[in-house]
């Protein structure tokens, strides 16, 4: 599937969050095609999740909604920018008036910078507080951010877009991303508004004649002289003129009419507006935009979210099966079937085959009725040599009754079953005794022994599991 316009990294993650939220609430989406596409490429888990979300989002209409959203958000920003410029211009016109009255320099400057400085102070305070505590609401961009989300979501009421704001808020809430974004936008808008005001001031000063005054009832003139001088220090660095003390004092008595005085006041006003208004907002906007960019670059999905963790083994399996490389044989090798038994035998005999060393051998028949007389103990058969010796011995002197004790906890394997078969060939009658230490479990594997002995051709009652029964059989019982 080819998709139009690829998503930015932020949009891609946003879309992934939308898909995750939907799946966590309404159950997994059908995703076989998306899964196959995502697994096809060699990439880490996040990339694969993004790829899957991209395909699923395109199918469900969320992808378009995200793109629409972003377009609308840009449009909103543009409108905001124009509005800010106009507002700034309007503020300049309002503050300077139509030239019929002289301009009060203090009120003019306060009118142009007052609200801006107050809001800047508030913002700085908010940042400091958020930096200290875990103030989550600041991390999410505060009131302005929420308002913006509400506003943009109010414009798109389609079902596809319903989940977008929450997903974005959740995504940006981490790492103070939203805070930087909202700050960059608001500083930018302020810079535009103040820039508009500066342009308006410049235009009006260029095309109208204004007189500049200051007024007071109780303050000495010297206060205004030092105020103007103090405020003018920074603009003067950038080459803006500062009215000298004589001009300032003269302006207290009435509007200055000399050209030099008017120009000095104009330059001072404009300089203050630019240096205390436009420049700090521009710098902050750039800084916040930089932080926003950095955070967006670092933005990663929280892969420990259940909705993503669930995808891990589907998108990035822990293992791949390689298939059977050496197939099973048609028939499993079987121990040799017992051949002819000797017709006559000598005394009864007992052996222990691979018995655990915690089981006593020779067995303790005391509890089961005392020592069995007239039996030969061929000992434990573990190693090759012991096995050989036993076979040679029974070949020469076949026993009448042979009791083979095995460990009921072990799994009967081909080797031990084969040996049982060979031993049985050398005795008139053979029984196998599945030994267990009293109280221990191991019943499950007794069944395995029974099956193995049946395959070997021994009678169904060839397996004894009680000591008493074993002793009775040795003593020529049934």
């Amino acid at each position: 599937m080819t998709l139009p316009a690829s998503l930015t990294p932020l949009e891609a993650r946003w879309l992934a969050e939308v898909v995750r939220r939907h799946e966590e609430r309404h159950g997994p989406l059908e995703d076989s095609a998306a899964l196959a596409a995502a697994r096809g490429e060699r990439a880490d888990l996040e990339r694969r999740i993004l790829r899957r979300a991209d395909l699923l989002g395109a199918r469900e209409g969320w992808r378009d909604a995200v793109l629409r959203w972003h377009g609308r958000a840009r449009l909103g920003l543009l409108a905001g920018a124009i509005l800010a410029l106009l507002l700034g211009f309007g503020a300049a016109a309002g503050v300077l008036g139509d030239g019929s009255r002289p301009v009060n320099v203090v009120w003019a400057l306060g009118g142009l910078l007052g609200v801006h400085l107050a809001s800047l102070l508030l913002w700085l305070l908010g940042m400091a507080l958020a930096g200290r505590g875990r103030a989550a609401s600041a991390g999410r961009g505060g009131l302005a951010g929420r308002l913006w989300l509400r506003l943009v979501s109010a414009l798109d009421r389609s079902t596809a877009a319903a989940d977008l704001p929450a997903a974005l808020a959740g995504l940006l809430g981490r790492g103070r991303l939203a805070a930087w974004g909202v700050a960059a936008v608001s500083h930018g808008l302020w810079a535009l508004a103040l820039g508009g005001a500066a342009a308006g001031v410049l235009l009006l000063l260029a095309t109208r004649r204004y007189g500049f005054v200051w007024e007071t009832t109780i303050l000495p003139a010297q206060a205004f002289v030092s105020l103007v001088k103090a405020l003018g220090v920074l603009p003067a660095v950038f080459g803006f003129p500062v009215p000298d003390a004589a001009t300032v004092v003269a302006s207290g008595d009435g509007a200055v009419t000399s050209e030099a005085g008017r120009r000095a006041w104009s330059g001072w006003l404009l300089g203050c507006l630019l240096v205390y208004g436009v420049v700090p907002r521009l710098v902050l906007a750039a800084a916040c935009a930089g932080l926003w960019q950095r955070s967006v670059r670092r933005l990663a999905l929280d892969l420990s979210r259940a909705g993503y963790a669930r995808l891990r083994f589907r998108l990035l399996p822990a293992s791949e099966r390689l298939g059977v490389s050496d197939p099973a044989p048609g028939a499993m090798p079987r121990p040799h079937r017992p051949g002819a038994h000797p017709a006559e035998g000598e005394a009864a005999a007992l052996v222990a085959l691979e018995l655990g060393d915690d089981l006593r051998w020779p067995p303790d028949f005391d509890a089961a009725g005392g020592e069995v007389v007239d039996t030969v103990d061929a000992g434990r058969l573990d190693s090759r040599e012991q096995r050989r010796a036993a076979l040679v011995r029974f070949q020469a002197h076949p026993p009448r009754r042979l009791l083979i004790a095995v460990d009921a906890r072990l799994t009967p394997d081909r080797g031990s079953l084969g040996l049982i078969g060979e031993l049985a060939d050398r005795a008139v009658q053979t029984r196998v005794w599945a030994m267990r230490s009293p109280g221990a479990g191991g019943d499950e594997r007794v069944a395995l022994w029974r099956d193995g002995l049946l395959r070997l051709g021994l009678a169904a009652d060839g397996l004894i599991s009680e000591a008493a029964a074993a002793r009775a059989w040795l003593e020529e019982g049934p």
Partner: protein
Amino acid sequence: MSDILRVAVVGHTNTGKTSLLRTLARDAGFGEVSDAAGTTRHVEGLRLMADDSPAVELYDTPGMEDAIGLLEFIDELVAAGERIDGPERVERFLATAEAGARFEQEAKVLRQLLASDAGLYVVDARDPVLPKHRDELAILAGCARPLLPVLNFVASPAARTSDWREALARLGLHAVVSFDTVAPALDGERTLIETLATLIHAHRPALARLIEARAREADERRVAARRLVAELLVELAARRDVVAERGDDELRSAVARMREAVRRREQACVDALLRLYRFRPDDARAAELPLTDGRWDDDLFNPETLRQMGVRLSTGAAAGAAAGVGIDLMTGGLTLGAAAALGAVAGSLWQTFGHYGERIAAKLTGQRELTVDDAILRLIALRQRMLLTALEGRGHAAMAPIELGGEGIPDGSDDDPVSARWRKGDLPWALEKARAHPEWVQGDDEDRDEAIEELADELAD
């Protein structure tokens, strides 16, 4: 030949080779497992992935069943006085007709080991050390590949771990790993892979990547699992059902409805957890969890269940048929409690006003509200934590149900502090907050996410 590390998993029959592969591969459907000899009769491979790149290939082989006979056979292939090395002896055996007949299974094992860089020799530690095992190791040593013995079933009381370590050391195998495929230790897999890396130096980076990927994955899964449980608790705490009518029948049916909804929600969480840990709801292997068919045995609202988990029912709710459901009868839902009210204020003043307004209206119209009782929240938290622990600590090969703390009824004295807090201490602040936010049942709130995050931390050990 590829440059990926290839490891053959070999051993005596029925020692858990396929189980080991299942556990390492997180693939509960790989091969076939049963308590019998010769379940696996073929060689099957799988590739362990570190993120998106293969780290090691493992090959499951049939069990060796007749090592004594095979060693005898191989010894006879060597003429007296002839000096040939191990691999050549094995090659000579593989060229005989018996390698395709009587010793077919063993031949598969040896062929695969020769084609691999190393072998994992799986041992059932409950078995006694027998000469047949020594013969097996002698034959395998003939392939001249590094062998790492892996002791399986070490968690069983019948395990003879020290016997095996001693016997293996006598054969020159000093690097031995204990790895119980039924109940692997938390760092068991890591130890296994690390030890393997010390034996095969050239493939260390790939194995290190594998360890790192697996650790990251486990962390993510653990956090995700806790979040799921936290979400469940927050939603249940936030739940408020309004009963409009005055009659007792309506109340009774509303209580029944609520209980059913709570049961279903808990089950949804269990299902999600099983999915997260890759236990399918209908999976036979899910039987190893404290669940039956993926469900809790004991009903949530049975007072006996609460007693068993050591949770006390709060006094008011214990009366009558409505146990486990808190009912605001007298006040129309104004008994939020100071803590919840404060939490609501901290959360959002606006919404709190809204809710109180609604409640005052409810009181005037004679409605009643049902909430999930604290005791039920405690019970759910406790048993979901138990499930988390069971899911964390156990492998994919387990086949028998685990005993839930033996026959003992937990009295709160012998268990961990987190459980004790959930049993007796105050409910976490996040839940108190949730009580005041009925809209959190639906989700879609950033404060809710924050509460879930907070609660997930409370569930951690």
